[in-house]
């Protein structure tokens, strides 16, 4: 009896499994792993990236080429080791085919290996470290947002164009801080009257601001992401320097994740941007309108570029009819990047880094009393990154 019972159980399970795998074969979902910093002080970045990406999936109808898409979310806690563990788990037990979402370059570099080793794709909604743009470029790695240096290269060009003679540069003392200022100096050739690196997460900048006042530069350019940006911009305004020496930064320093907290102190600041909510194109109108309706706030550049990367993925997925298992075809479709970008102009370079335009924005108060980065002018057209020459991309 017992034996027969067990046998029946085994048979039923086997039958069930066959049934399950049978149906899965017909309609198995495309699996995407989305890793980002969702908690802690920097958690706001991951939230904005995820919200932008979710909207892109919604606009795609939750399907690539008629095949349903399932997104699995993970929180890397701003820790490279946690990011690595999540990537391992998603690849091995969830069997994801695409990984995306990571915002910090150091986390990305740690998590990338298991993804690429397994043959999966990594399509970045944010970080685009220089190391992956040159010699170590990879056929399955795509930067949907930017190559890191691009964020500041246009700023360097602008300072040069406008004839600023003495520029003061500041950033936190870590690799991305140095990359950004390198980006500036690649285009700005004038006198750098100060290049100051401060401690990561520094709260008080009074001493540094006093030094700026004494150095009398004619422009100040900073890279302070997250809470550091709030601290610096507030203190710069309080010191009365904002009216004397114009302050420049990349868009991420005073974006919509930070502007509500900085408020009036940021008004008049110039920021360099790869995207603006005021860019006049149909894709951008649809995105900004739907994002505000869905989440009741103005999207940040993080959200916009994550949305755009999601759109890129879905367009490529549609093009291969949902069969992303055909990796060469999917890679080709990604390289072609046939989608309407919210950035207006977007295409991939040979190293899978974007070629895109660069804009100047200025922080202003809009008619509803909200602080926004108003679009001022286009600084550069078709900005490429500096590393593409070193990349010998293998054919798919």
């Amino acid at each position: 009896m017992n034996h027969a019972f067990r046998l029946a159980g085994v048979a039923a399970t086997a039958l069930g499994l066959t049934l399950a795998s049978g149906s899965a074969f017909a309609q198995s979902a495309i699996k995407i792993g989305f890793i980002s910093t969702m908690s802690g002080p920097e958690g706001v970045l991951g939230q904005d990236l995820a919200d932008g990406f979710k909207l892109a999936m919604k606009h795609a109808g939750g399907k690539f080429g008629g095949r349903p898409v399932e997104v699995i979310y993970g929180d890397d806690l701003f820790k490279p080791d946690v990011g690595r563990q999540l990537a391992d788990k998603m690849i091995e037990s969830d069997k994801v085919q695409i990984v995306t979402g990571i915002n910090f370059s150091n986390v990305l570099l740690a998590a990338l290996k298991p993804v690429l080793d397994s043959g999966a794709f990594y399509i970045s909604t944010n970080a685009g470290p220089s190391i992956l743009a040159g010699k170590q470029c990879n056929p399955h790695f795509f930067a949907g947002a930017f190559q890191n240096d691009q964020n500041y290269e246009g700023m360097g060009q602008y300072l040069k164009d406008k004839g600023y003679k003495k520029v003061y540069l500041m950033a936190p003392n870590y690799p991305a801080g140095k990359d950004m200022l390198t980006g500036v100096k690649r285009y700005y050739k004038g006198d750098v009257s100060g290049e100051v690196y401060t401690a990561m997460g520094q709260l008080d900048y009074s001493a540094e601001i006093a030094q700026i006042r004494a150095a009398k530069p004619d422009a100040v350019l900073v890279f302070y992401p997250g809470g550091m940006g709030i601290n610096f911009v507030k203190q710069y305004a309080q010191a009365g320097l904002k009216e004397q020496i114009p302050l420049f930064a990349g868009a991420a320093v005073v974006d919509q994740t930070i502007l509500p907290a900085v408020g009036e102190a940021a008004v008049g600041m110039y920021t360099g941007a790869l995207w603006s909510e005021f860019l006049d194109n149909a894709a951008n109108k649809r995105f900004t309108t739907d994002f505000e309706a869905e989440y009741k706030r103005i999207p940040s550049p993080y959200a916009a570029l994550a949305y755009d990367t999601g759109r890129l993925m879905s367009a490529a997925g549609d093009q291969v009819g949902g069969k992303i298992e055909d990796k060469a075809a999917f890679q080709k479709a990604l390289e072609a990047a046939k989608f309407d970008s919210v950035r207006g102009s977007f295409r991939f370079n040979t190293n899978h880094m974007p070629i895109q335009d660069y804009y100047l924005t200025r922080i202003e108060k809009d008619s509803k009393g909200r602080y926004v980065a108003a679009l001022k002018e286009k600084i550069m057209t078709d900005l490429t990154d500096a590393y593409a020459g070193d990349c010998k991309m293998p054919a798919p």
Partner: protein
Amino acid sequence: MDPGLFVEQSLNGVQLGVQLFLMSAGLTLVFGIMNLINLAHGSLYMAGAFFAAAFIKLTGSFMLALALAIPATAILGALMELVVLRRFYGRSHLDQVLVTFGLILVFNDLVRLVWGVVPVAMPTPEFLSGSVTIFEGVRYPAFRLAILAVGLLVALGLYVVVVHTRTGMWIRAGASNRAMASALGVDVQLVFGLVFAAGAALAGLAGMMAGPITAVQVGMGEPILILALVVTVIGGIGSIRGAFIAALMIGVVDTFGRVLLPPALGSMVIFMLMAVILAWRPKGLFPVHA
């Protein structure tokens, strides 16, 4: 460095120092008197800033918000002592570190639940938003002068209370010998509660004064807590005077270190100072438990 810049940087250093003092005063008393390591002191700093930001939004007045947020933080501190920490006075320091670290996580998530992950706005009050000419060529933000004034007033107030009142005598007695003070009829439990609430109020005040110049966001209390611990250890655990002198020292050394030394060394200099002082006086500058 010309004289004007030197004066400005000295002011910056002293101003950072008094901010640290507000934070350390409560920490050192709690540590000294109750023998309790409270890592969640930084959460009270964060709570103060968030309460003040909320009350500013509600009332539109910075002063009124301060008047409401200080007692609110004190009550939160008293509750924290009553509900959780009271059970941990007799436990080992490791247990205390674990439970108060847990409290940090709880408070961070509570703040995230209530206010969300986006940092909140805390504008500089209108009457303190400009800058003041101290002397020819040296202008200094009015709000930073206000921080300086508040910090020095609190230091003076604490000095009067601790050295010249009966409550202060109990506190000093408790700090130098708990068991003996208790045996001589001091209501130690009451003193503990009072000191904890007062320390919480001071941490909250530090957070409120920092709000207009720094980011009011989840986790803002942890970086300042580390500096406050350094101040407490250098000053001598339980000593208000030690905390005051050590805080000013750290403020000035940190400010000039950042300006004059290369970046990696500049952010390390206060820890090197701590190491040197502890090598010379292992119990800090003004040890209470002789």
